[in-house]
C-alpha cells in the first residue's frame, strides 16, 4: 500500500494514493451516471436540453428534470452512499466482511414496520397513498429500523459488545423479523401486499425532494463524524485486549460508530426501502480496489453511490417501458462482482 505523509508544521496526515485515486475516479463516474440519469427516460434529452430545462422554469422539460429525474437520481446516489458507509463501519466493527446493516436489525426492522403499516392500514382507509405514502412510510421505516437495531444491540450486549456475538444475535433477530414480515404479507389484502412487495425490494420509483433531504442531512452530519472515527475504527478491528491497550475507549467508540451506522442505514432505508447488497458489496469492492486492510469509509460511500446510481439507470431504462425495483438490479450486479473479487483474491 502506497501512503505518503503530508506534513504542515505540527500537523500531519497520511495520504493513501490508491484510495485517493479511487475516490476521485468514483466521483467522476458518479457524475457521468448522474448525467445519463438526467438524459435518459421516457423522453431522451441531450445534455444541452437537460441544462436548459434545469435553469429555465418555463422549459417543457423543467418538470421532468427538476421534479422527477434529479430527485430520484439524487436519492439513489445518496442512499447508496449512506448504505455503503454504514456497511463499511459494521464490517469493521463485526470484524467480518459479510456483516451488513441487516445484521444490526435495521433493514429487517424497517421492513416489518412498513409492511405492517401498509397491510394493517388496509385499502378500506384508502390504502398506502397520499400523505401516508410520502411521510408515513419513511417515518415507519425509520422507527422500525431503530427499534430493530436497539433489539439486536440489547440482546447482544453482555458486559461489553463482542463482534461475533453481535453477528449471531443479528442473524437470529433478522430471521424472526423476516418471518413476521412474511406472516403479515400472507394475511394482508392482495393489493396492499403488492405495494409492500415493491417497497421491500428497494425502489427509487417516484422519489421526490422529500426523500432527498433527510438522507442528504444525515450524510452531511455523519460523514465528517465517521471520518473522525476512522482511526478508532482501524484499532477496533483488533482483539479487545489490544484495542484497550492502544488507549481506545472501546465500548464508547464502538457504540458511537454503531449508532452512526444504524442512523445511516435507517435513514437510507426510510427513503428507498432495503436496497440489497450495496452495504455488503460496496465496502468490499472499495477495500480490494484500494488495497487497504479495512474498508475505506469515503471510497466505500462513493462506490456505493456509483453502484446504486448505475443500477437505477439500468432499472429504469433496460426493460423500458417496464421498470424494475433498483434493489433487484443492485443484487444482480453486485453479487457476481463481489464473487469475482473474492475468487481473484483467493488465487
Amino acid at each position, binding site marked *: *500500500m502506497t*501512503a505518503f*505523509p503530508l*506534513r504542515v508544521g*505540527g*500537523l*500531519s*496526515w*497520511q495520504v493513501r494514493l490508491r484510495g485517493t485515486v479511487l475516490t476521485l475516479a468514483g466521483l467522476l463516474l458518479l457524475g457521468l451516471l448522474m448525467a445519463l440519469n438526467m438524459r435518459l427516460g421516457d423522453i431522451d434529452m441531450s445534455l444541452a436540453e437537460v441544462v436548459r430545462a434545469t435553469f429555465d422554469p418555463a422549459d417543457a422539460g423543467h418538470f421532468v428534470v427538476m421534479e422527477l429525474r434529479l430527485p430520484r437520481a439524487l436519492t439513489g446516489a445518496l442512499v447508496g452512499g449512506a448504505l455503503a458507509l454504514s456497511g463499511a463501519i459494521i464490517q469493521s466493527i463485526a*470484524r467480518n466482511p459479510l456483516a451488513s446493516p441487516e445484521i444490526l436489525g435495521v433493514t429487517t426492522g424497517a421492513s416489518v414496520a412498513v409492511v405492517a403499516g401498509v397491510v394493517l392500514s388496509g385499502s378500506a382507509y384508502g390504502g398506502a397513498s397520499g400523505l401516508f405514502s410520502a411521510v408515513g412510510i419513511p417515518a415507519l421505516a425509520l422507527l422500525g429500523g431503530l427499534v430493530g437495531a436497539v433489539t439486536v444491540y440489547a440482546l447482544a450486549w453482555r*458486559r461489553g459488545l463482542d463482534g461475533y456475538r453481535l453477528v449471531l444475535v443479528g442473524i437470529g433477530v433478522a430471521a424472526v423479523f423476516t418471518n413476521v414480515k412474511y406472516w403479515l404479507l400472507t394475511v394482508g389484502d392482495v393489493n396492499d401486499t403488492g405495494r409492500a412487495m415493491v417497497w421491500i425490494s428497494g425502489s427509487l420509483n417516484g422519489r421526490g425532494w422529500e426523500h432527498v433531504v433527510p438522507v442528504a442531512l444525515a450524510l452531511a452530519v455523519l460523514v465528517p463524524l465517521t*471520518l*473522525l472515527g*476512522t*482511526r478508532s475504527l*482501524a*484499532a477496533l*478491528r*483488533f*482483539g*479487545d*485486549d*489490544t484495542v*484497550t*491497550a*492502544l*488507549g*481506545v*475507549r472501546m465500548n464508547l467508540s464502538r457504540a458511537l460508530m454503531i449508532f452512526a451506522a444504524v442512523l445511516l442505514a435507517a435513514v437510507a432505508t426510510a427513503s428507498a426501502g432495503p436496497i440489497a447488497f450495496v452495504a455488503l458489496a460496496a465496502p468490499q469492492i472499495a477495500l480490494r480496489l484500494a488495497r487497504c*486492510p*479495512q474498508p475505506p469509509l469515503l471510497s466505500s460511500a462513493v462506490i456505493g453511490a456509483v453502484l446504486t446510481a448505475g443500477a437505477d439507470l439500468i432499472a429504469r431504462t433496460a426493460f423500458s417501458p417496464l421498470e424494475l425495483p433498483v434493489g433487484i438490479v443492485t443484487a444482480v450486479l453486485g453479487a457476481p462482482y463481489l464473487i469475482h473479487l473474492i475468487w481473484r483474491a483467493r488465487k
Partner: protein
Amino acid sequence: MRLQAAGVTLGYGERTVVENLDLGVHSGTVTTIIGPNGCGKSTLLRALGRLLKPQGGEVLLDGKRIDRMPTREVAKVLGVLPQAPTAPEGLTVADLVARGRHPHQTWYRQWSSDDEAAVGRALDMTGLADLAERPLDELSGGQRQRAWISMALAQGTDLLLLDEPTTFLDLAHQVEVLELVRQLHREASRTIVMVLHDLNLAARYADRLVAMREGQVVAAGDPHDVLTEDLLREVFDLDAKVIPDPVAGTPLVVPIGPRSRP
C-alpha cells in the same frame, strides 16, 4: 513503585479468580509471574494493564488509580501485549507496528516524523525492517511474536506488560524473544512485567520472580530465593531437584515427578 495492585479482587462475572492480592512492581526491573495453569497470573497481568476492571481493590500507576486516568494517557506510558493477540487479516508488519502509535495520534496529527522514527526504531530493534511489507499471516510464529512486541515498542512506553510472549514458540525462538526483552530492559531500563510458563527461562531472565497459586502470591523475590524445591512442591505439586544452571548460574528445575502424596 511504578505499578501496584492494592488488595485487588479479580474475576469474570460470578467467578472470582484472585482475592485481595497485593503486588508492587519496582521501576526498572523485570518481574516475571509464574504459577500453574488457572492460578490467575494472566488475570493479574490483565488487571495491571487495565484490561480487566478489579471487582475490589485498586491498581495504581505511578501512584494514581489507573481506572481514573484517561485510557489514552495510560497507553502513552504503559504498553500491553495480550496473550495470543489477533490482528485483522491481510495486515502487513509495517501496518501492525504503525498501529502502536495510536495513542500519540489525532485526526490532525496522523503521521508525524516522531511516529515514523518510532516505528523505524521498533522495526530495527526487533530485526523486522526487512520484513516490514510482508503480510503478518505469512510470518513464522517467532517473527509474528516479534512483530507484536515491535508494535508495543512503537507505542514508546517505558513500562511493558507481556502475557506469555513465548507461547507456541520453539525453544530457540523463546530464547530469541527473551533476549530481546532483556535488551529492551538494559538499553532504556524499561520496567517489564511478564507471565511465563517455562520456569528455567523465567529464572534466567527475571530480576524478580512472583510465584502464584490459586489467586494468591506464594512467594516473591530474587529467583534464587523463590525457585526452591519446597516451593515447587507447594505451588506446582511437583517433586523436583533444583540445581544451578550451568550457563547462567540461575536456578534450574529438573522434575522428578508429580508430588508424592504422604
